[in-house]
């Protein structure tokens, strides 16, 4: 029996894979199994303070879902969230990848500097980082305003968030700023796995950098890109803190994204049944959008044995 087939015995006889995944699976099931189940049952219940006090949930069937799907604001917010999410994901991935490739070519000192900066940005507590950005764009204390003024332009004190486009750009910018370190470092780590010989061979063969990227780098990096994109979509879709803090804990309805909407309509009111329904709808929407990526991932994952 060759060593190669040792791993490839029919699934019936080989318990090895199951042993390998059991610990991880056990932890995930233990911690998340019950909560997910409860989330689903909650979505069919009214579970506010009255129910919390009595301990008895009120079953309302599909009422929560109906109320949401009939609410025009829900659809507006959903659409707005998607557009906002895609913009942020595109920016994060493009800039992150560009930085990662740049790092590959940098001299070691510069690379170390960039790495450390990225890690510091990643390490700043989220609230602190966001508050600093808020400060930089505040009405009276904006260093941006004062710098522009110092440069000679007459720039009055302004509220950067009255205009929703400007506001969302800033919020999106802050989210992207926070997302880049993770993306860059992950892509860079994956890039180091590309065998130098292949790169050199392709260069010798006369391929330009775009062709090298497509035929040499991309196949190796595909799994990383796929998961970074899916994760970015999932996380950016649920962005809450940045909007909340930058808008002084009181975002106007034009700034509602799904997470804020969920808070205002459910969690902020201690209505956890409605909150669960919104959460499930959010998951379905996400599934719909990332379906392509998930299928790809399952294919990739499956195809490697």
């Amino acid at each position, binding site marked *: 029996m060759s060593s190669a087939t040792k791993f490839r015995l029919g699934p019936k006889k080989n318990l090895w894979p199951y042993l390998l995944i059991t610990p991880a699976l056990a932890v995930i099931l233990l911690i998340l199994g019950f909560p997910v189940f409860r989330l689903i049952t909650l979505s069919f219940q009214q579970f506010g303070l009255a129910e*919390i006090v009595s301990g008895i949930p009120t079953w309302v069937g599909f009422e929560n879902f109906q109320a949401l799907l009939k609410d025009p604001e829900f659809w507006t917010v959903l659409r707005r969230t998607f557009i906002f999410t895609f913009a942020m994901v595109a920016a994060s991935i493009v800039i992150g990848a560009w930085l990662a490739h740049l790092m590959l070519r940098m001299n070691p000192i510069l690379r170390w500097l960039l790495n450390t900066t990225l890690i510091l940005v990643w390490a700043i507590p989220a609230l602190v980082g966001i508050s600093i950005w808020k400060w930089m764009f*505040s009405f009276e204390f904006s260093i941006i305003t004062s710098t522009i003024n110092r440069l000679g332009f007459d720039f009055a004190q302004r*509220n950067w968030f*009255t205009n929703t486009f400007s506001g969302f750009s800033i919020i999106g910018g802050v989210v992207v700023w926070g997302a880049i370190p993770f993306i860059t470092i992950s892509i860079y780590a994956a890039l180091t796995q590309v065998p130098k010989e292949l790169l050199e061979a392709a260069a010798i063969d006369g391929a330009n950098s775009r062709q090298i990227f497509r035929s040499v780098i991309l196949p190796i990096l595909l799994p990383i890109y796929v998961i970074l994109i899916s994760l970015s979509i999932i996380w950016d879709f649920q962005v809450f803190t940045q909007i909340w803090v930058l808008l002084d804990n009181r975002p106007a309805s034009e700034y509602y994204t799904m997470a804020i909407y969920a808070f205002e309509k459910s969690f902020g009111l*201690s209505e956890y049944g409605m909150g669960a329904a919104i959460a499930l709808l959010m998951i379905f929407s996400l599934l719909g959008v990332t379906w392509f990526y998930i299928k790809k991932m399952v294919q990739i994952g499956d195809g490697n044995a």
Partner: protein
Amino acid sequence: MRITRKKVIAIISSTALVSSLFLGASTASAAPKDSGTVTVWIQGDAKSWPAAVDRANKMFNSKYPNVKVDIQYQTWGDSLKKLDAALVAGNTPDVFEFGNTQVLKYSAAGALKDLSSSKSQFAYSTNWLKGLEEAGSYNGKLYAVPYYAGSRAVMYRTDLFASLKMKAPRTYEQFTAAADKLMAANSSNSKFSAVYMPGKYWYAAMGFVYDSKGAIAVQEAGKWKGSLDSAASIEGLTRWKNIVDKYSKADKSGDEGGQWEVFAGGNVAMSYSNGWETCCIAPQKGAFFPMPSIRAGEYMPAFLGGSNLGVPAKAKNPEWGVYWIKSFTSGQAMREIVKVGNLPNNTSMLTLVKGGNAQVAKGASSTWFVPAAEKWVNVENANVLQTMLSDIATGKKTVAQAAKDASAEITKLLN
């Protein structure tokens, strides 16, 4: 019979099993035991008056020497979420601090223990500040004891006033006259505000409304009706808009968070501020005067912010919780809280407020509070008042139109 290890184990475990049945059968009810731990969840702000906490613990332990006091400081943002989680899991604290605008929902849902029968035990309970007592009550019953309060008055630059030979205004006319003078004297400074009034400062704006005898909402035949569109309310709103237009360079779409930072910067002569804001305005020198009402001799109603302390209905040690609250709101402890610049929970001790805050305390005899509607929190969450005010301040809508829209929205949300 040989005693094998197996047999020993069997005997021990069956004994344990049987005894656990009996132990489990003993009541875990609220019958006070002699020792244990009382769990107190109050906000981290209390770290600024540690002497009050110490006194409370001493007084508590003199009655319950074998009970440990476990104080866990919370953060404002997510404390209600934590309370909800605790309620669901059946593991609640014995004392919880609510912001006075947060507690009504919990009282109405029956989440808190009815403290009406214990009311007389609490110090100064006959003289509690109305704003706090209303907040902690529901349907005539007391659910959360008043803890401390903050109020607002006008903080002004003593040096600017002195340079223009002005004294602190005592009537509304004197107030606007002073503002006019200040604007004239500083007309070359485009950033100068005689009265700093951000566009979404609803605590201030509603004071004007209530001063004109208007209201946010009133109850009619058991239903709530938004009343910002009444003539009285509109008069108040119009006066407020005048202040914004004539005297303020503040953000017309911003709120009052951090306004003391702007005061400290030097371009503000008067701001409608909380008592504690004098802490942080260095190098400027500020003092307070109560905001005058349009009726001579009275003060404009100020919003009483503050906290209440409640005992969750399912707390494990409610008797200890109540006694700890009694200790923490006792005269001795309250004195320490007042020393640091807060307002006490009762009117009798208002005169104890020293220094700059004394003027704030003076004005605290005239207050307003949000409508005691169970669904009030929905109005706050939907930002109805802030949106209305910034629409008025920016000129997006006329006062009448904005008030009408807001009232309709409030009526819808409160019912």
